[in-house]
């Protein structure tokens, strides 16, 4: 689904590199969480996949026919924008060229947001806002959903619902998921694989191996 080869990136196109020659492969149907300390390049990797940034060296390519994107609610969207949940989804449906209006209500139903359809986005709680963004990402049956810290600013019970929804999309609908995570517990509990980025390099491991590695490192420090 996604393949990165010998990927280098820095914001001024010269060393030191944020991503320092990484190789990465995401197969269809996986649920991969990208973890690592602040500033290790998690969000940069996501932006390279989404083509918001261009690699300095190496390549990154995606075979996804349709990508659903879930930004961090506060980070990307225009706060104070007068838009209802329904308008946000319906306008996006039009951008994607989907004719059937019913996909909007279906997406809201799956995200459990039918009753908030007429609410302004700004008035939603962190959890409801995140679910609205996931509902938007589900429009048009994407084969890949990319999320940027989906549990950021979300209460524990809403986190449970959000990860339940993501797992359902992954297990029942075969949607490949790539989630940039700061929530290590959620990453270990929900992912099929973990991509650990550190000092510009990365490696893939199983959630169990990552948990063991994490506990071992904590014990040493």
């Amino acid at each position, binding site marked *: 689904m996604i393949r990165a080869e010998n990927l280098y990136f820095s914001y001024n196109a010269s060393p030191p590199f944020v991503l320092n020659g990484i190789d990465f492969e995401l197969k269809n149907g996986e649920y991969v969480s990208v973890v690592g300390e602040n500033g290790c390049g998690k969000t940069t990797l996501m932006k390279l996949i989404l083509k*918001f940034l261009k690699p300095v060296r190496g390549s990154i390519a995606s075979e996804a026919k349709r990508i659903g994107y879930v930004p961090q609610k506060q980070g*990307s969207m225009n706060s104070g924008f*007068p838009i*209802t949940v329904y308008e946000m989804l319906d306008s996006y449906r039009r*951008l994607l060229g989907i004719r059937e209006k019913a996909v909007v209500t279906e997406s809201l139903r799956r995200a459990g947001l039918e009753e908030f359809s*007429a609410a302004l986005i700004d008035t939603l709680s962190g959890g409801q806002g995140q679910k609205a963004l996931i509902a938007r990402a589900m429009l048009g049956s994407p084969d890949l959903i990319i999320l940027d810290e989906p549990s950021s600013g979300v209460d524990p019970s809403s986190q449970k619902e959000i990860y339940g929804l993501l797992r359902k999309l992954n297990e029942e609908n075969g949607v490949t998921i790539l989630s940039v995570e700061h929530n290590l517990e959620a990453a270990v509990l929900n992912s099929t694989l973990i991509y650990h980025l550190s000092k510009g390099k990365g490696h893939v491991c199983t959630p169990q191996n990552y948990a063991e590695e994490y506990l071992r490192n904590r014990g040493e420090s």
Partner: protein
Amino acid sequence: MLSYGFMQNAVFVSLCISVLCPCIGIFLVLRRYSMIGDALSHASLAGITIGLLFGQSPVLGAFVFTSVCGALVEFLRSYYEKHTDLILSIILSLGVGTAITIISSGRLRVNADAFMFGSILTVTKTDMIMVLALSLVSLLAVAFLYHQMLYIAFDEEAAKVAGVRVRLINYVFSILVASAISVSIRIVGVLVLSSMIAIPVATALQLGKGFRKTLVFSVIFSAFDIMSGLLFSYYLNVAPGGLTALISVALLLAVILAKRLLSGVKGRKSHS
């Protein structure tokens, strides 16, 4: 009042302004670019003077020059990503500098004051044709690009993921801003033109509605502001631009006051 030909012309142009300005203004305001709209409206004075200097329609001159300035804003944005307020100074210097140079050269045979303050007497048939053509084309473009412009203003990254050509649409949008400004200069005048672009939208935002309803209310408020401005300017014999700006601010304050009173009444009801 409406039996006078000049008033019929003024009402016709005002109707075009009241629809077009908020349709463009809502995107400018929500992208936090209302001050760039202000800079572009001041820059249009240069276009007017260039038009007059070469014996062409001042509305056409304003449209061409403001479109160039709009494109320049987009171009400069990549150089001053973190200092967008500087773009304002650059555009103002270019526009007002050009206008002052041409006016002070003494080569203009027409007085440019009417364009600064707005006038109901000076709308010509050529202006009306220009205003109608610009309004129709611009409104069609807004209808066609509505969802793209909405998403660029709301969530640019999501728009890019959906395949929207953000940069291209930003350039088209700067031409639409130029069009709204050119349509409005005859009646509203350069100095308070931004009031027609920003204030009806600011008033509608106070109602706390979704995007479509906010747009509809912006058009309603805009029509009220400009038609009242026109009516009172006729009877008081003053420039319509200043009065329209005053009425738009008064309406904004009235809506804020009404909102406060209503929330106070609701609060008392819920306590009792």
